[in-house]
């Protein structure tokens, strides 16, 4: 399993999750978990996905998701899970 965290931050609009999920499905990326919250009026979503079966390497996924974010006016980041595990778990 190659766990990657995708975060989406921005103004809430119709179809954010749909766009991201369609892209992920198209690249054979399995979604393990989704959670969302509103912080200071901004929509915050986090997805835990598994890149093990992905058709593309993480660098490409990261770049393309960022482009999708630009199109719909939100910031999308894609980071390997380890950075969060290392920082928040002993």
């Amino acid at each position, binding site marked *: 399993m190659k766990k990657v965290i995708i975060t989406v931050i921005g103004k809430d609009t119709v179809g954010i999750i749909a766009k991201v999920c369609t892209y992920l499905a198209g690249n054979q990326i399995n979604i393990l978990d989704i959670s*969302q*919250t509103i*912080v200071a009026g901004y929509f915050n979503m986090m997805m835990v996905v598994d890149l093990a079966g992905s058709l593309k390497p993480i660098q490409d996924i990261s770049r393309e998701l960022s482009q999708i974010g630009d199109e719909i006016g939100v910031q999308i*980041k894609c980071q390997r899970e380890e950075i*969060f595990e290392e920082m928040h778990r002993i």
Partner: protein
Amino acid sequence: MINIFEVLETNEMIERENLDVRTITLGISLLDCIDSDIQALNRKIYEKICRVAEKLVATGKDIEREFGIPIVNKRISVTPIALVGGAAAKTEEDFVSVAETLDQAAKTVGVNFIGGFSALVSKSMTEADRLLIHSIPKALSVTDRICSSVVLGSTRTGINMDAVRLMGDIIKEAAELTADRDSLGCAKLVVLCNAPDDNPFMAGAFHGVTEGDSVINVGVSGPGVVKTAISRVRGQGFDVLCETIKKTAFKVTRVGQLVAHEASKRLNVPFGIVDLSLAPTPAIGDSVADILKEIGVEEPGAPGTTAALALLNDQVKKGGVMASSYVGGLSGAFIPVSEDQGMIEAVNAGALTIEKLEAMTCVCSVGLDMIAIPGDTPSTSIAGIIADEMALGMVNQKTTAVRIIPAIGKKVGDTVEFGGLLGLAPIMPVNPFSCKDLIEREGRIPAPIHSFKN
């Protein structure tokens, strides 16, 4: 599993509080390049650096993208060149040619600095050491990416005062040769006492002779993260303050440890150490001075500053040590003037003097760093400032350093501007009384009594 708030906290640190990995420094031993022919030496050095560091920059960028953490600098440190070049270099020009080779290699592999144009003379100097030291001003003026360091003392050896005196002259000369660039040469030249072999930070990085063929050392940073964290516990007791700094330092260091391991694995180079440092940059919100203010002094330099810095330095180490399997380098808070917007403001406000900075260096990781002084300061006074700082390091068994810039043609009230990470520095006044007779004494200051531990 990681929750959304933890993810948001990490990304907030990166995006708003300037959390970054300050440097991945690849240490490369050049001992196997030694040759009696200067051209052969230069060729071997160039080939080895280009071969070992070929993928350093690209690997650093890959790690940045995959983890979403900026890695500001990718750098190289090499074996002190006075050792490597001793057999081949017969003139100062020969050493300058090695500097040019290192500069060329740095440009080829794409690193922004290469450290190790250095001599270790804490007890005495060889002829090669002397030649290299004399070549430093020219080497720094004809290259772009070379950093130079000279180790002048240690707790074990005492202080080589002949070398201290010489460095007073060399620093002045380096300033004059780069006078057209605000004496930039001196920003890339540092003298040290008790220098660590595995320091990843410039200008004092070199690949010590106790190291292996190559090693990955990582320097972390995050003054903005610490500042933000302690601003949330404003007004609370020291126990809460210390606990907050420790927890934050732990988190910051974990990122450094992760990056170090990834870089080591991908480059197939052993992992050396993580340097737990709070290294400021001139960017707003990336300042150690701001942390001191948040702890409770109006400006750095006010009474209480040394105590606040001592506390900060110790908590950073306590939090960081648990986060990494190997800690080394300088590890602590850096207090450069030109590279820290808050320090610059404190100098301009009249709060911070060289004498107070000297006191602060007793309790933090390095020394008098990136301090600009009038260009007409006598070289003996520069040597005196160096001797004071070396004495602090020697007696307190810690690393101390001096990176001072006598800005040619400038006086108190003027400013020098280096740009980028090196920042800008107001010219600070130097005590006008002379130490010429002290500096002109020959020989060395003996090691202190507490160095005899056998």
